[in-house]
């Protein structure tokens, strides 16, 4: 193997060793990962989640399918992104404002049924045992409502 061949092999070895290190030591540094999804034991008493609702021209709340309005994010992906950005100290108002301008940019191209004038972000809490029992016992397709809903921020375009 020539010097160029050795260099190629060395580069590929770094990729594999990086992945090995991420697995064994347990770090995440793109493109290496320890694949931690679902690794925490999930036994909460209350479950905290987010809820983003649209605001129409009269500032009335409208439920929206997140995947249609915020693709490439779907609901869980958007809320995970919001959660990580909040942890990083980002301003929730700026986030909701950014999401509104994203909506404004894509709504015509995506032929979205609603031209929303703003968004409102909530933190919701579910009583986990109650949620669980309802799901296990009642066969309800619709999710139970959250126990509490706490306002986080909103943005409304006056135009």
């Amino acid at each position, binding site marked *: 193997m020539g010097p160029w061949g050795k260099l190629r092999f060395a580069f590929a070895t770094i*990729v594999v060793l990086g992945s090995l290190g991420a*697995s064994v030591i347990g770090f995440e540094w793109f493109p290496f990962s320890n694949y931690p999804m*679902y690794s925490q*034991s999930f036994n*909460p008493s209350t479950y905290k989640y987010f809820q983003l609702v649209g605001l129409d021209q009269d500032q009335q709340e409208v439920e929206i399918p997140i995947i249609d309005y915020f693709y490439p994010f779907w*609901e869980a992906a958007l809320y995970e*992104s919001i959660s990580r950005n909040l942890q990083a100290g980002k301003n929730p108002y700026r986030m909701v404002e950014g999401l509104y301008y994203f909506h404004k940019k894509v709504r015509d191209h995506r032929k979205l049924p609603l031209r929303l004038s703003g968004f409102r972000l909530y933190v919701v809490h579910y009583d986990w045992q109650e949620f669980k029992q309802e799901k296990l016992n009642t066969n309800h397709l619709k999710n139970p409502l959250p126990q509490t809903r706490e306002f986080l921020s909103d943005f409304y375009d006056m135009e």
Partner: protein
Amino acid sequence: MTSTTWNKIFFGNDSGLRLGVSRFLFFACLCYISARTPYFISFHLLPEVLWLPKGFFSFLQSKPDWSYETWKVLLNIWRVSLVLSALGLFSRFSLKIAGGLGFLIMGIAHCYGYYTHTYIPLVAALLILMLSHAGDHFSLDQLIRKHPRPVQAFEYAWPIGYIKILFCLIFLAAGLSKIRNGGWSWIASENLQNILLRSYLYYPDVHSFASSLRLNEWIAQNLLLCQVLAFVTILIETSSPLALFHRRIALFLIPGLFLLQAAFYFTIYVNFYAYFCLYVFWIPWDKVFKYFRSRLSSKEK
């Protein structure tokens, strides 16, 4: 790793056909993934405020100041390079472009606070393949080239060996993470039962077919079954490196991992279809071809 296994992985008498067929299937899958939806290009439209770079991209304080058109051109170049890499045309260049742009495009998609682990293994595999001789066989380059390049068998063996190691490391890492972060309670508590039911909140808007089956609810009714399944999940994931050592173990473990990922889709609605690109490296295509060739010739006689 024993020296025999090491030799088998890296110095095996690989003809290049196996790597060539695997390359073709890997890039064909990737072409399908990149062309099926506008997923990767849509990230460029996301608001700056969600920009949260990670790993290699941490040095980018703000999202790249490229126009949507520039981004679209880059994505289309990547798509063309994927097609050329699948066909094995100008492969010395197309593989490098596919690897470099794949790293950039999929990397940027990880910089908005949501880390989709589905694509990380593909990035690593692309980086390995970009420097390999994967385009020498089962390719248009092979048809065009009058005199084949003299290449040692080792050059065809190591990319497959490395991607197989990488594949096992993904599952090992996932298993170890569960042990490290969840511990015994990941198996013995109501953890999996809770995870199955959380899917109703987590993924209400994706994978409507899988959720319509309501398999998660059916499994969640039985706590013991949930605990057994949690144990089996960790067992299969952590034992995945054994597939590297013995072909017979691999014959059980690799389909087992495939079934595990299919089960994830039908119960917690996590879609790992991108991993199918990597399963192709486990199949000894040279032997499959040889078998069918001998069957054909015996029929002709």
